[in-house]
Each structure stands twice: as C-alpha cells, then as structure tokens.
C-alpha cells in the first residue's frame, strides 16, 4: 500500500526549507482546513445527487435529468440557489441560540469527518483514543439540534427537536455498543492501528457471528442517528413541516441539509473502517495472484468504495421501509437493540478470551 506520509513529510521538509517552523505548521494547517472544506463540499454534492438518483430508481422514476448531462449539475444549481436566498431571523426567536445551532452541528460533523482514515498516512486526527473521541464528537450534534428546535419559538420545531433528541441519544447507545464490540476484537482504539490490524482479514470476517450482528445493529442505529430512513419522524413532513429547522431559511437551512448528508457518509465510513477494513484491500488467503492484483488498487479507492457501498445499503433501507411511530422507535431501541447488543458484547468477549476468532 502506498504510504501518504511520505508525501506529507516531503511537503513538510520543503516548507521548512522556505520558512521558519512556526510558519510552516501554520501553512500546513491552512492547507488541511481548505482540503477538509473542499472534500466536505464535494462529498455533499455527490451524496445529494446519489440520493436523488437512488431514490428515483427505487420508485421507478428517472430523477433529475435536465440540468447538465444526466442532471449532474442540478445539485450545484440548488446550492447556488440556496446561497442567494435571504437568511432572516423571525420575530420572537432566541437570537443567540438560533444563530449558534448551525455552528454546533457543523462542528460535530467536521470533527468526526476529520477522524476518518482515508488512506494510509492520510488521517487528520489520529488520537490513541480515536474511536472514543469520534463517538464523543458526534454527540455534539444533538446539542445543535436541540438548540435549533428550542430557540425557534415554533411548536413544529420544538416537537421535532424533542423527538430527534430522544431518538439520537437512544440509538447512540447501540451504535456505541456495536463499535465497542469491535474494539474488543481489535484490541485498540486508535483508528490507524485498527485499520492496519485488519491486514490479515477484515474484522467482520475475523469476528464472524458477533461481528455480523454488530454490523446489522450498527447499520440500524446509524440510520436512526442521521434522522433518516424509517426513523425520519423528527422531520416527518406530513405532520411537522420540517421539524427542528422549520424556521431556518436559505443557507441556515442549507447547513442542516449539508450536515445530514455528511453524517450519512460519516456513519457509513465508520462502518467501513471498523467492520470492513478501512483502506485495506480484499485478500483471500491462498489466492496469491488475486491478492497481488487487489494490492494495486490505491487505498483511498478502497475506502470510498466501501463507504459508498454502505451508503447505498442505508439508502436502500431508507426507501424500502415505511416510517415508524415514536413509541415503536423507542421500543425497538430499548427493548430489542440494547439487550441484543449487550449480549453480543459478552459473546464477543467470550470468543476473544477463548481465542475462537480467526
């Protein structure tokens, strides 16, 4: 696998030869920031376009076709339209919290986004408590949603925010527990170590039965955490107009929309990292020729391929199932997923302790 830290080290050396160390680090930080924003915006555009096309395919429609070839420019036009709309603050809102909410949501989204190991040596944040940090950072988002709903001074908003809050914090448990199960198997919390530990086999294969159960639980909980799929009743448009972002206009709404799609990608990418081996190519023991061919495909292609595969699975879930009621959602989490994931965790611990994993 090509190691990108060679490139980053080379850039660092080159900058050091041009300027003092403090400035070099400053330039690198600015470059990383711009890189994150560009990748973020690009992924958002791809995901929104993909959602429209996938949704259209599931409903026997064509989706956007008019703007650009196969409607590819449609999303860019939408972004431009949203940018030219007025951002106004309605009467009676709590101005400070109302304006703070998009910051909180985007902050959570960026922090988790920066943790993703795109390729070997291309992680921005790589703590030794990586996965734990990731879970902690992703919980900031719910604060933003509650702030947006509460400060809007609108009954639709507050009902949507309360539903969303209850749903997200509930499903965070089983998502966290599913990841915890895989941490037991991997024996590390550092994301780069976790990926490099999967060189001999992806964790979903080495952990067999409990890993598969954890993967399914994580997919369900991940869908619920993004307020999508059968769990989209915080923004149930037939009863709550738009939920917690009813009172936001223009780009204020755009931030919520952006964060929603990027959170979908982040959940899928975490699944790809923790279960499907991150940027590790697919290796089948015994087939050396096949393995060598697979090694030639660069790491980031593997990573985005796996992440988009999981994104497709989640869109499939979203467009296949009808919406649940709030009591059904909470019952599914507390009466089924939490007990199952606890037992699953114990099962994994027993398997790891007795050495029954591959």
């Amino acid at each position, binding site marked *: 696998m090509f190691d990108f830290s060679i490139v980053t080290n080379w850039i660092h050396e080159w900058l050091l030869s041009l300027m003092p160390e403090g400035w070099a680090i400053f330039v690198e930080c600015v470059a990383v920031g711009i890189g994150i924003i560009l990748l*973020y915006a690009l992924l958002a555009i791809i995901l929104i376009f993909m959602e429209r096309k996938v949704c259209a395919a599931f409903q026997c429609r064509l989706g956007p076709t008019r703007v650009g070839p196969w409607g590819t420019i449609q999303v860019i036009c939408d972004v431009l339209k949203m940018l030219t709309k007025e951002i106004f603050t309605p009467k009676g809102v709590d101005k400070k919290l109302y304006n703070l909410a998009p910051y909180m949501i985007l902050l959570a989204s960026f*922090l988790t986004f920066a943790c993703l190991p795109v390729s070997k040596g291309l992680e921005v944040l790589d703590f030794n408590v990586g996965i734990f940090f990731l879970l902690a950072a992703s919980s900031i988002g719910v604060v933003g949603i509650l702030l947006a709903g509460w400060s809007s001074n609108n009954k639709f908003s507050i009902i949507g925010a309360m539903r969303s809050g209850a749903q997200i914090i509930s499903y*965070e448990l089983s998502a966290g527990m599913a990841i915890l199960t895989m*941490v037991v198997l991997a024996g590390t919390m550092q994301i780069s170590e976790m990926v490099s530990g999967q060189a001999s086999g992806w964790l979903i294969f080495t952990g067999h039965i409990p890993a598969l159960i954890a993967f399914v639980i994580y997919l369900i909980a991940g869908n619920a955490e993004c307020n999508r799929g059968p769990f989209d009743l915080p923004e149930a448009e037939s009863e709550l107009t738009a939920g917690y972002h009813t009172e936001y206009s223009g780009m204020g709404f755009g931030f919520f929309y952006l964060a929603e799609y990027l959170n979908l990608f982040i959940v899928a990418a975490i699944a790809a990292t923790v279960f499907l081996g991150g940027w590790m190519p697919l290796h089948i023991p015994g087939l050396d020729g096949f393995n060598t061919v697979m090694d030639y495909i660069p790491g980031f292609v593997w990573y985005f391929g796996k992440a988009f595969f999981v994104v497709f699975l989640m869109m499939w879930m979203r467009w296949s199932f009808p919406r649940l009621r709030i*009591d059904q959602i909470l019952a599914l989490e507390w009466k089924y997923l939490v007990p199952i994931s606890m037992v699953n965790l114990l099962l994994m611990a027993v398997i790891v302790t007795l050495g029954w994993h591959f």
Partner: protein
Amino acid sequence: MNFTMLVTVVLTAIAFVAIVVLLSWLISPRSYNEQKMEPYECGIPTRGGSWMKFRVGYYLFAILFLMFEVETVFLFPWAVVTRDLGVAGLMGVLFFLFILILGLAYAWRKGALRWK
C-alpha cells in the same frame, strides 16, 4: 501535532459557517414585511408561547440514556485489554453488566419504557 490539528479542525468548522453566512448575506436580496417575520404556522396566527411544559416521557429516556452512556465510558478501557485480562477480566465485566441489565429490567418492569 494532533492537538494542533484538533484546533485546526474546530477553527475550520467555525470559519466555514461564518464565511458561508457572510457570503450569503452579501449576495442575497433583503426585504421586510410584518407577516414574514411571524412564526410559521399553516397560515394562521400562532396561539400561545412555544416554550412550554413538555411531555415527561422524553425526560425518562434521557435519564436512562445517562446511565447507559456512563457505562459505555467504563467499558471502553476494558475493551482494549480484554485479550490480556483473560477469564478474570471477563468475570468482572460479566458482574458489571449483570448489575446494569438488572437496572434495565427494573426500568422495564416499572413501565418506564412504555410510551403512554
């Protein structure tokens, strides 16, 4: 270097929102009328305030969540060293989880998980 990057990412997120809001403010049209500034409500005037008492069910789930989230925090350090701890560590965590499941069973029995 990691914490420099953490600060960079936080600043990037804040700068992104601020720059986009500024850009939008610069190029967007502005108009004012009385009706536009009212809270959205299907075309009729809103009755009463929105900051009101709220259903207690959500609060119960928040309390339950707190218990289990703290438990997850305790379990993470154990998860990293499961392999080295062996059977003794497994027994310890079994007991820990047993007490927690007892808590969940109590809440279930008391009807805290029922959405009335």
